[in-house]
């Protein structure tokens, strides 16, 4: 082949595809760069019996960085080194988070599963000592208590959050900005402060002794921001034309809201409620300060101490015996299952919304 190249702008190699993101050459290099370091690291582990973490940090990571930098150089020239670094850092750090999450979920499932049984879920904790074996007693009273306490605070918080979201989306109020900032700031309210507040307001002042409803009150400031903000997003997604259409037909604002906007945003509001409940169902500090952990089933949130899952967990970790830690893992698994159910329902609810809109 002759070495005369035509340098006019129109002539380019037939295989060139500048509009395509990845040239075949790049794909080859990239796959080499992602396979070789992993293979070398696995080989080192297999051959020398090196510790996995050590192999990860001493063999795999430096090799991967060098490989990515080499690919960067071949694709972009010298400044491609940083490009390679960025890609490796992003993927490595992201997967680190997944490993952490996986470790949390796996340890709860593997440790908690052996504690889980019908009696653990349905029985209460009366007559049970911290060292009693796992065949007796369970978290039944705590599950009921958690549901009652969280249910009561949901009944109060949801209308409040919904009305706040209405103020933020449907009215011409002047202090929207401040309210939104305040809600955002409230979402970072330390949970222990919320518990101290209710303790100071009702229990220290002698209005009541420890009871379920004080726990419900302590959860309200923690739940309100989530419910209000997710509802606001849901209401914002309702097209303005719908609202204006209703108003133009002569409907008063409240009817336009109740009969047009609210049905349109229904699934979004369900999502908001579920996320709010998921946010508070595991809150421990406020309940430790406001509801005394009881061992008996108590179905009246307005009188007497009431057990709940987080306080059960809190007590049994504190006991520190093997059996009690085993129970704590079981209770943690129950909480995690509840959270997962709420979370998946929220996902399903929001998915039906997106489908309906298409």
């Amino acid at each position, binding site marked *: 082949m002759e070495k005369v190249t035509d340098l006019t702008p129109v002539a380019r190699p037939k295989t060139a595809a500048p509009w395509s993101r990845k040239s075949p050459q790049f794909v080859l290099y990239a796959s080499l760069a992602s396979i070789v370091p992993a293979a070398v690291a696995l080989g080192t582990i297999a051959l020398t019996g090196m510790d996995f*973490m050590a192999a990860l940090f001493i063999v795999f990571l430096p090799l991967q960085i060098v490989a990515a930098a080499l690919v960067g150089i071949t694709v972009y020239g010298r*400044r491609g080194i*940083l*490009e390679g670094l960025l*890609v490796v*850092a*992003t*993927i490595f*750090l*992201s997967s680190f*988070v*997944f490993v*952490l999450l996986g*470790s949390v979920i796996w340890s709860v499932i593997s440790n908690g599963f052996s504690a889980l049984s019908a009696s653990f879920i349905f029985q209460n904790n009366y007559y049970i000592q911290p060292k009693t074996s796992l065949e007796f007693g369970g978290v039944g009273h705590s599950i009921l208590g958690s549901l009652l306490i969280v249910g009561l605070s949901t009944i109060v918080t949801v209308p409040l959050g*919904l*009305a*706040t979201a209405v*103020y*933020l989306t*449907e009215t*011409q*109020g002047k*202090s929207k900005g401040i*309210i*939104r*900032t*305040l*809600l*955002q*700031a*409230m*979402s*970072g*309210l*330390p*949970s*222990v*402060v919320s518990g*101290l507040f209710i303790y*100071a307001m009702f229990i*220290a002042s002698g209005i009541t002794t420890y009871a379920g409803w004080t726990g419900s009150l302590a959860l309200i*400031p923690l739940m309100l921001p989530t419910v*209000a903000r997710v509802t606001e997003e849901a209401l914002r997604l309702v097209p303005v034309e719908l609202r204006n259409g209703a108003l133009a037909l002569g409907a*008063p*604002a*409240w009817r336009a809201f109740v009969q047009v906007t609210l049905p349109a945003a229904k699934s979004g509001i369900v999502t908001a409620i579920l996320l709010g409940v998921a946010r508070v169902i*595991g*809150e*421990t500090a406020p309940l*430790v300060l406001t509801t005394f952990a009881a061992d008996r089933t108590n179905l009246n949130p307005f009188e007497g101490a009431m057990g709940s899952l987080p306080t059960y*967990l*809190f007590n049994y*970790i504190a006991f520190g015996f093997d059996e009690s830690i085993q129970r704590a893992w079981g209770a*943690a698994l129950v*909480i*995690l299952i509840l*959270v997962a159910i*709420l*979370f998946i329902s929220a*996902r399903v609810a929001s998915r039906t919304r997106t489908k309906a809109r298409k």
Partner: protein
Amino acid sequence: MSVNAPSEKIERRKLATKPFARADRIFFAVSTAAAYSSFVIIALILIFLVGRAIPAFQTQGIIDFAFGSTWDSAATPATFQLGPMLWGSILISLIGVVIAVPLAISIAYFIEFMAHKTLAKIVTTIVDLLAAIPSIVLGLWGAFVFSPIAAGWAKMLNQSMGWIPIFDNPEQNFLRSPFIAGIVVAVMIVPIIASITREIFSQMDRDIINASLALGGNRESTFRKVILPTAAGGVIGGVLLGLGRALGETVAVLYVLNISFDINWGSVLQAKGGSVASMIISKFGEANPDEISALMAAGLVLFVFTLIINSIASYIVAKAQPWRK
């Protein structure tokens, strides 16, 4: 002149922006009242905490209470001073933020600019799931699963870089240190920072990114010179929100930290540290009335601290998204 005179008498028609109907007025009044309820809640918290905290402030003195380093309810007179806890909270939150920020930003970058759409959706769900794990479950995991592993890391750090004062640890006990508490806190705040950063990234003007790529920029230079400067405001706001959450973290820290009133200025690997929130819950059970008042005062300090940080953060986040009105 005379032509204009009668027109002044004609009453201008007003465009109604206020509701006439009684039902509507009630509707708007209810929603306004609900919106102001968040004001009321914050105000009530302040009033009741201040009310209960005043005795402690009077007997201890505000300066001594905040910066002294003794906590003894049995002494006469009982001394309650918060210094080591306050500093410990700040130290742990800083460690948490330093670890969480790179993780959160890389996840946000991965979701928005690198991953395929399906993968991005899955990753977003996973991050949301991480946010939904209750802190006590993380505390249990931190105490029984993660602490031994992290203690190994701490030992490695100490052996390789022990000559730096912050990694010094003469006792060679690596459990229950601020370092481990910081990592557990980081796990808690990664989803918060990541979701805000992702939101800011997703609302960025795609044209400037494409322009940067068209001018020959690669991923790295686009990220460093276009994406980060544009998104900086929102990212900083998200980091501050995470910081506020880290300061208020209670039960997760309680199980992985040895709470000690012997102040630890920065030897992060030593098994002594402090956290205002965890201290409150650990002392509350067997506190006498004087101590309860001091704990209320500690709660008040924590509340004011986090409220200020969170308000600044939400203001910054709101400013960084001017298109949201």
